[in-house]
C-alpha cells in the first residue's frame, strides 16, 4: 500500500470515516509476501439468494430447498471449498432455477429484464437469445461468456424454442441452465502469470473481482466491478483501491459483515435449535430469531457503524432489543411507535450482569442442551469459536463412578452444575479438557439454557468465579473483560476473517502475513474492523497464487 493512495483518500470528502481511520493508521511498511492455492467454492445459500436478488431484483421468488452448507475448520466459508452437489441437491437447484427463469420471462417481467424482443414469439431468435444470454451469463458466471459457451446456450435455447413452439419457453430453459451450470454454482478461480513478478502467479481479473465482491458484499461482482475487470484496472493498485473503496463505503458491506459473523458464531445451528417446550414455553422460533438478530445487529452497529474496538464486543452493555427479547431478559423495552416488533437501542445499567455478547441469548442458548444449560458446551464454544483454540474430543471410555455416587439424593448430593462438573475435573482422564472449558462456562451459569438470569440453582448459590489462561474473573461481566484482554481474541478474528475471505485456512506464508502485519496493524488501529477489511482487500497478497506443480503448465 503506498502513500499516494492514502493522500488521495484523505483529500476526498465524500468518503466517510472509514477512509480517515485508515489514513490515521501508520502506513504499512512493505508487508511480508504471501500466497496460497486456488480454491473452488460452492455458493452458499445466502450467496445464491444475494446474486439472484442483485441480478433479477428483490421481487424474485425463490422456491425450493438448498442443501445444507457444510462446515470445515469452524467456518461454512471453508466448508464451501470442499462441498460438492448431491443428486437431491441438484434436483432442487434445477427446480429453483426453472422457477426463477419462469418469472424472468413471464409477461409481467419480460419488459423489465429482457433487452430485446424476438422477431416472432413462437420461433427461435438467434440474435435476441444471444443478447439476453450474454447479458445474464456475464453476471451469473461472473465473467464474459466465451464464444463457444454462448453458442452452446443459444443453440440450446433455439432447440428448446423450436420443440415447444415458443421463444420464451426456450429462453426460460436456457436461462435456467445458466443457473444450474457449475460455472454459476461454483466460484472457479483462474490464475495467470504475474507480469510484475516473473515466476509468480496471480488471480485473473475476474477471479479477483469475485474474491473481492464475495469478501466485501457476499455476492457476485456487479457490472461496475466486472467492467473494471474487463479493462484490466484491477491489476493496478489505483484501480483496485478504487473498487475496494467503492465497495467498502457502500451500505452493502453490512451484508457481508453479517454473513461473516453469522458464519463465525455458528448461527446456522439456529435452524436445528430445540428447547423443551414444557420447561420453556416462552422460548419459541420467534424468540430464537430475535436472539440471533440481536447479536448481529449489535455487532454490525459496534464494528461497522460506530467503528469501535472489536474487543469491546465482549464487554459492551449496549445492544438492541425487541419487546419479545425484553420479556426473555426481563427488562422493559418500550418501542417508540408502539409496534409490537420493533428494534430499540438498549443499554444495560452499570454493574449489570448482561455485558458483552457472551451474555446474549444467541450464544447462551445455542451452546446449551434443550432442557438445561451447559458450562462445558459454552466453554468449548468460547475456546473454539472466539479464541481459535481446539478442544480435544472426549475419550471413548469414560468412568462415571464417582460422579454417579454423588448424584444420589442425600447429604452428599451435588446441587449445582459446578459441583457436578468438579467431579469431572478431579478425574484425571477428564480433567485435561474440562479444566480448559468448564471454568469459562461456569462463569455464565447465572444464565440458564434460554439465557434467563438466575441467582441460585436447586437452592444453592451459583459460584461464577474462575480463570481464563491465568487471568481470574468473578462473574460473566468480568469474564467478558478477561476475554477482551486476551490477545488470542483479536488474533482469532483476523484468522477467521482471512479464512472467510479466501475459503481456506492460511498457508504458512499467509500465516506470517497475518501475524507480522495484519494483526499488528489491527492492534495499532484500535482493533477497528473496516481498516482490517481494507488492508486485506487491497493487498497483492490477497490475490497472489501459489500454484501446485500440476497446474503450472496450464497457467496463462
Amino acid at each position: 500500500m503506498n502513500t499516494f493512495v492514502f493522500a488521495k483518500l484523505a483529500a476526498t470528502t465524500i468518503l466517510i470515516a472509514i477512509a480517515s481511520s485508515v489514513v490515521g493508521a501508520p502506513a504499512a511498511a512493505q508487508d511480508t509476501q504471501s500466497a496460497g492455492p486456488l480454491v473452488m467454492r460452492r455458493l452458499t445459500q445466502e450467496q445464491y439468494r444475494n446474486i439472484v436478488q442483485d441480478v433479477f431484483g428483490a421481487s424474485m421468488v425463490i422456491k425450493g430447498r438448498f442443501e445444507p452448507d457444510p462446515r470445515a475448520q469452524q467456518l461454512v466459508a471453508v466448508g464451501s471449498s470442499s462441498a460438492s452437489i448431491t443428486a437431491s441437491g441438484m434436483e432442487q437447484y434445477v427446480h429453483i432455477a426453472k422457477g426463477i427463469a419462469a418469472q424472468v420471462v413471464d409477461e409481467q417481467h419480460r419488459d423489465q429484464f429482457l433487452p430485446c424482443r424476438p422477431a416472432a414469439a413462437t420461433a427461435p431468435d438467434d440474435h435476441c437469445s444471444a443478447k439476453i444470454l450474454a447479458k445474464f451469463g456475464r453476471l451469473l458466471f461472473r465473467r464474459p461468456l466465451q464464444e463457444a459457451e454462448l453458442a452452446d446456450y443459444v443453440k440450446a435455447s433455439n432447440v428448446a424454442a423450436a420443440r415447444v413452439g415458443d421463444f420464451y419457453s426456450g429462453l426460460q430453459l436456457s436461462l435456467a441452465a445458466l443457473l444450474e451450470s457449475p460455472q454459476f454454482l461454483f466460484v472457479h478461480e483462474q490464475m495467470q502469470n504475474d507480469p510484475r513478478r516473473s515466476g509468480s502467479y496471480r488471480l485473473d481479473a475476474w477471479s479477483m473481482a469475485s474474491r473481492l465482491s464475495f469478501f466485501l458484499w457476499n455476492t457476485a461482482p456487479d457490472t461496475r466491478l466486472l467492467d473494471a475487470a474487463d479493462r484490466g484496472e484491477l491489476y493496478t493498485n489505483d484501480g483496485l483501491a478504487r473498487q475496494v473503496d467503492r465497495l467498502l463505503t457502500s451500505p452493502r458491506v453490512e451484508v457481508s459483515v453479517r454473513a461473516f459473523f453469522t458464519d463465525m458464531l455458528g448461527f446456522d445451528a439456529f435452524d436445528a435449535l430445540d428447547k423443551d417446550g414444557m420447561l420453556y414455553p416462552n422460548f419459541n422460533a420467534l424468540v430464537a430469531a430475535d436472539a440471533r438478530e440481536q447479536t448481529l445487529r449489535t455487532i454490525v452497529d459496534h464494528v461497522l457503524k460506530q467503528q469501535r474496538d472489536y474487543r469491546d464486543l465482549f464487554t459492551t452493555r449496549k445492544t438492541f432489543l425487541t419487546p419479545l427479547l425484553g420479556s426473555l431478559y426481563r427488562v422493559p423495552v418500550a418501542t417508540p411507535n408502539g409496534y409490537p416488533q420493533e428494534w430499540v437501542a438498549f443499554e444495560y445499567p452499570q454493574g449489570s450482569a448482561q455485558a458483552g455478547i457472551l451474555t446474549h441469548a444467541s450464544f447462551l442458548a445455542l451452546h446449551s442442551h434443550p432442557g438445561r444449560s451447559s458450562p462445558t458446551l459454552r466453554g468449548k464454544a468460547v475456546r473454539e469459536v472466539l479464541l481459535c483454540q481446539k478442544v480435544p474430543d472426549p475419550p471413548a471410555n469414560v468412568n462415571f463412578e464417582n460422579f454417579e455416587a454423588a448424584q444420589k439424593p442425600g447429604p452428599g448430593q451435588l446441587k449445582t452444575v459446578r459441583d457436578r462438573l468438579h467431579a469431572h475435573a478431579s478425574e484425571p482422564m477428564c480433567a485435561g479438557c474440562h479444566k480448559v472449558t468448564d471454568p469459562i462456562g461456569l462463569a455464565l451459569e447465572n444464565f440458564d439454557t434460554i439465557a434467563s438470569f438466575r441467582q441460585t440453582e436447586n437452592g444453592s448459590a451459583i459460584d461464577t468465579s474462575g480463570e481464563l489462561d491465568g487471568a481470574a474473573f468473578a462473574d460473566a461481566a468480568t469474564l467478558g473483560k478477561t476475554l477482551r484482554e486476551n490477545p488470542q481474541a483479536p488474533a482469532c478474528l483476523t484468522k477467521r476473517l482471512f479464512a472467510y475471505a479466501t475459503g481456506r485456512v492460511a498457508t504458512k506464508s499467509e500465516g506470517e502475513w497475518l501475524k507480522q502485519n495484519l494483526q499488528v496493524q489491527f492492534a495499532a488501529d484500535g482493533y477497528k474492523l473496516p481498516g482490517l477489511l481494507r488492508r486485506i482487500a487491497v493487498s497483492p497478497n490477497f490475490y497472489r497464487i501459489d500454484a501446485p506443480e500440476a497446474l503450472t503448465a496450464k497457467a496463462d
Partner: protein
Amino acid sequence: MSRKELLTRRGMLQGMLAGSAVYVGLPFLECFLNNSGTALANGMPLPTRFGTWFWGLGLHSGRWEPQKAGKIEQLGPELAGLERVKDKINVYSMMKVHTDGRPVFVHFTGNMSQLTGTVPKTNTLALPTIDALVADAIGTSTRFRSLEVTATGNAKASYSFKAGNVQQTSEASPAQVYARLFGPEFRDPNSATFTPDPKVMAEQSVLSAITDQRLGLTRQVGAADRARLDEYFTSLRQVEQQVELQLQKPAPLEACSVPPPPGEMPVGTEIETAMHTNKIMAGLLAHALACDQTRVFNMVFSEAGSALRRPGNPMTHHIYSHEESVDEQLGYQPNVSWFSTRSMEAFATVIETLDGVKEGDGTLLDHTLLLASTDTGFAKVHSLENMPVLTAGRAGGRMKTGIHVIGRGDPTTRVGLTAMQALGMSLSSWGTGSMQTSKTIGEVLV
C-alpha cells in the same frame, strides 16, 4: 439400463415430434431382470429393495438378545416392540467394531465403521457407505437413486455417504418428501393415459448444453476439485435421467398407489414427535418403493448420540446414557432403556408398514432388505462391543428370517457383506483391517 441404452433412447426421442403420445415400456423390461440385469430371479418379477434404518445409543447387553442362536423364540425386553414381527427379522448379537488401535471418535467411529466397512482415521470418510454401494448396483434405473429421510427434524442427520466424503442430505419434512415424490414430476404407473410434455423434451436438450462443457471445465482444476465436479456431473446425470423417465410411460405396478398428502407437521427430537414422523416417513417410503420411484432408502430415526427427549425433562437420551447410574437392582439404566425400547418400537413400525403393502405373491417387506444399525454397544462408555445389528425382510426370497445369529466378536461387516450378497452383488469380502471379512452368515442366506 446402461448409459449407452439411455443415450440411444434420447436420440430416438429427440427424433420424434412433440405432442404425440409415446409409449415406451422400458421399466417393464427392467422388472423382469434380476439386480445385475442378467436373468430371471427366483421367478419373482419384482425388484428387490434395500434400506438402512439408524437409531442412536445402542441397546443394553443382555436386554435384547434372544437366548439361543437359531430360530428366535424369545426377544429381550428392549426388543419387545418387535414381538409381532419377530419371524420377519434377524438379530445379530456379539458383533463388534475392531478399531485396530485407531482413535475412537465418539458417536462416529462406531456407526461409520459399520457402514463403510473401514474404521476412519480422521473424522472425514474415505469410503462410501453400504447404501451407496448398493445404490450403484440396484438403484441406477429408478427416478431416485436413493432417498434419505429423517425423523429428527434435522436435514444434516444422514449417515449415507458417497465416495469422497459426500454426505447425502436427509429430508426432514414429510410434506416436502411428498411434494418431491408425488408432485408434478410424478408419473403414475397405473394411469390410463400418458402424454409426454414437449417442454420436458426441450429440457433434455438444454441440460446437455451444460454437460457439453464438462471436459473444458475439469481440465482447468486440480484433482480434488475435479472429483467434486465429477460428483456434480453425476448428480446432473441423475436429473437428466429423471427427465428422460418423465418422457416414458412406466409399466403398471399393481401395488402402487398415491397416498394423500401428509400436510405440514411439527418435527423435532421430542420422542412422540419423532415416533410420529418416523411413521409418516415409513408410509411415504412404502408408497415410493411400491411405485418404483426408488429401490434404496436411508432412514435416520435418531442421530448418533441420540437427541431424543421427553417434554418437561431436561435429561435427554444422551445425557441419561452418561449420567444415569446402572440401577443396582435392575442391572441397567432404566431411563436409557426406556428410550432404547421406544426406538425399537419405531423400527417395528417401519417393518409393519412395509409388510402392510401387498405386492406380488407377498408383501413389500418380502422384497426388501432392511438393515438397522446404531453407533454404540453400551452407550455409557461409548463401547463398540456387542453392537446390536438387525435386519428385516426377505430380500426377494434370498434371505431367511426369524433367526438369531451370535457373532462371538466378529466384525459387524459380516452382516453388511451378507446383506450385499443377498441383494445379488458379487463380492466375496468387504471391509479393511480387522473389519475385513469374507465370512458370509450362511445361516441366513437361502
